[in-house]
């Protein structure tokens, strides 16, 4: 059942105009600076004297940016042709503003892109932003496999054309007890599921992330059993809230946030959001996820945000909102991260204490 857009509109939702302007949250350590509006027109880029640029191709002075366009003006290529590096500050045009919003203040871009749990790039939250510079999210293909009629490999650009790209402002609650509010850009996973035509045996979907030790230093260490695996029940996957995100803050995803495509399930703990997805596999049995393997008593398959079910390490009844500063204190964590209305019915009759 699809939720009507109109019924979800409420006065407390964040209006697009209230989002912090791009310039305010400009990442100071960004290694490629776009020259004025040249970005949109595909004009010359000036790569600054960055570490990344030096590693990749020595002194890059003026690098051309190849820019293709999809039907909605969506950029097809986001790679700096000369340096071969992915340009993280690539605006996505033609994004539909949907009323999915949160009534909280949006997290600063700088915080959302420098405080990340992405163990393929290191276990410290500052690691991904520093270590993900060599990772290349283009060209990229995603293999659609298993119990589907359309088992085939599609490119990221094809994926981005499967449905209109929408902006969704979601709360993100990490199992570690902190949270952010992030404006994602992506397409409903439901549109991919529909396109793939699952067979009657498809009960779950397994998401497999990239595992490239050459460009992912954290993947050289056996912190988790690589590649990273996540999963959803088919009804969770087709819930209107579930998003395949390709961007944040109106731009393509930076590497550290899961470029080129990641899963977003705002009512679940953040680790459910598989990043840099390379395989989407429709399966009959519940997939064994990376975190379930790592700590079965700590991480369950559902991983729904639940203030009633405590984690052995972290309090789940309250959380720290990133950006609040030193003295902001904690806020109460809501059941299903405040998305009960949209997702609660999927778990009716399920013992959430056991199925955590």
């Amino acid at each position, binding site marked *: 059942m699809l939720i009507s857009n109109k019924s979800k509109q409420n006065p407390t939702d964040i209006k697009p105009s209230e989002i912090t302007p791009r310039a305010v949250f400009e990442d100071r350590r960004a290694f490629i600076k776009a020259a004025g509006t040249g970005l949109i027109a595909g004009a010359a880029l000036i790569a600054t004297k960055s570490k990344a640029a030096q590693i990749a191709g020595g002194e890059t002075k003026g690098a051309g940016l190849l820019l293709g366009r999809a039907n909605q003006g969506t950029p097809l290529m986001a790679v700096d042709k000369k340096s071969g590096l992915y340009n993280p500050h690539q605006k996505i045009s033609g994004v539909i503003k949907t009323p999915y919003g949160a009534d909280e203040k949006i997290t600063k871009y700088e915080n959302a892109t420098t*405080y990340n749990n992405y163990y393929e790039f290191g276990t410290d939250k500052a690691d991904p932003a520093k270590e993900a510079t060599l990772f290349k999210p283009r060209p990229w293909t995603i293999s659609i496999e298993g119990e589907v009629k359309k088992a085939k490999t599609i490119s990221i650009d094809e994926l981005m054309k499967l449905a209109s790209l929408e902006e969704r402002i979601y709360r993100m609650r990490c199992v570690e007890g902190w949270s952010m509010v992030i404006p994602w850009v992506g397409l409903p996973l439901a549109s991919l599921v529909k396109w793939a035509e699952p067979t009657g045996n498809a009960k779950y979907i397994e998401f497999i992330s990239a595992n490239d030790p050459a460009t992912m230093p954290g993947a050289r260490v056996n*912190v988790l059993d690589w590649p990273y695996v996540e999963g959803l029940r088919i009804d969770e996957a087709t819930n209107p809230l579930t998003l395949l995100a390709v961007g944040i803050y109106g731009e393509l995803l930076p590497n550290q946030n899961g470029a080129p495509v990641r899963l977003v399930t705002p009512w679940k703990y953040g680790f459910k959001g598989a990043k840099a997805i390379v395989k989407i596999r429709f399966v009959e049995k519940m997939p064994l996820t990376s975190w379930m393997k790592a700590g079965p008593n700590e991480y369950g398959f559902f991983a729904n945000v639940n203030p009633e079910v*405590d984690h*052995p*390490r972290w309090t789940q009844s309250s959380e*720290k909102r*990133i950006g609040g500063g030193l003295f902001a204190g904690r806020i109460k964590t809501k059941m299903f991260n405040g998305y009960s209305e949209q997702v609660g019915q999927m778990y009716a009759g399920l013992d959430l204490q056991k199925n955590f």
Partner: protein
Amino acid sequence: MMSKQGILKVKIAIWLMAFMPLFRLIWLGVNDDLGANPVEFVERSTGTWTLVILLVTLSMTPIRLLTGVIWQVQLRRLLGLFMFFYACLHITTYVWLDYSFVWKDIVKDIIKHPYVIVGFSAFVLTIPLAATSNNAMMRRLKSNWKILHKAVYLIAILGVLHFWWLVKKDVTEPLYYAFALAVLLGIRLYYKQKSKPRVAKTQNSTILDAQIN
């Protein structure tokens, strides 16, 4: 042997160095440079320095055992008190900045989470040690003082365990602390065994030396 003046100089240096982590935090805080999760940053930083100073304190005696140099043993009290100082900052951060003095939630957090119980126990144990660290208490407690202050070993073990259990997956960093503590306690045990008569000699004193250096 170090002169009295020499020791005073070393102590002044310790005072200056020991305040640096705190000044750094204040500096970063004033400049809004504590990162996305400033409370976690302060918690981590004060916790780390508590452990580091504790391990430095615990290395004074092994240095004496290994080298025969004894003057640095006089630094233990000062170092131990700075460890207590950072432990207090650590717990203040937890109670105030993290939990805003909401005692109900704090008690729940302590009871329900093993790493918090362990850390909290370690902190509670440091209180009597800090309170009896002056000369008057040393004289009053006589031989009991030594027994009481053996609690520092337990505090160190609990402190490292606290760090170990708090880590989600990658235990590399706590492993360094556990290793350092194991070496420091190992040296003590080795010399204790050695000083006992009729005890067979163990063969790894040179390995321990190498690890310490």
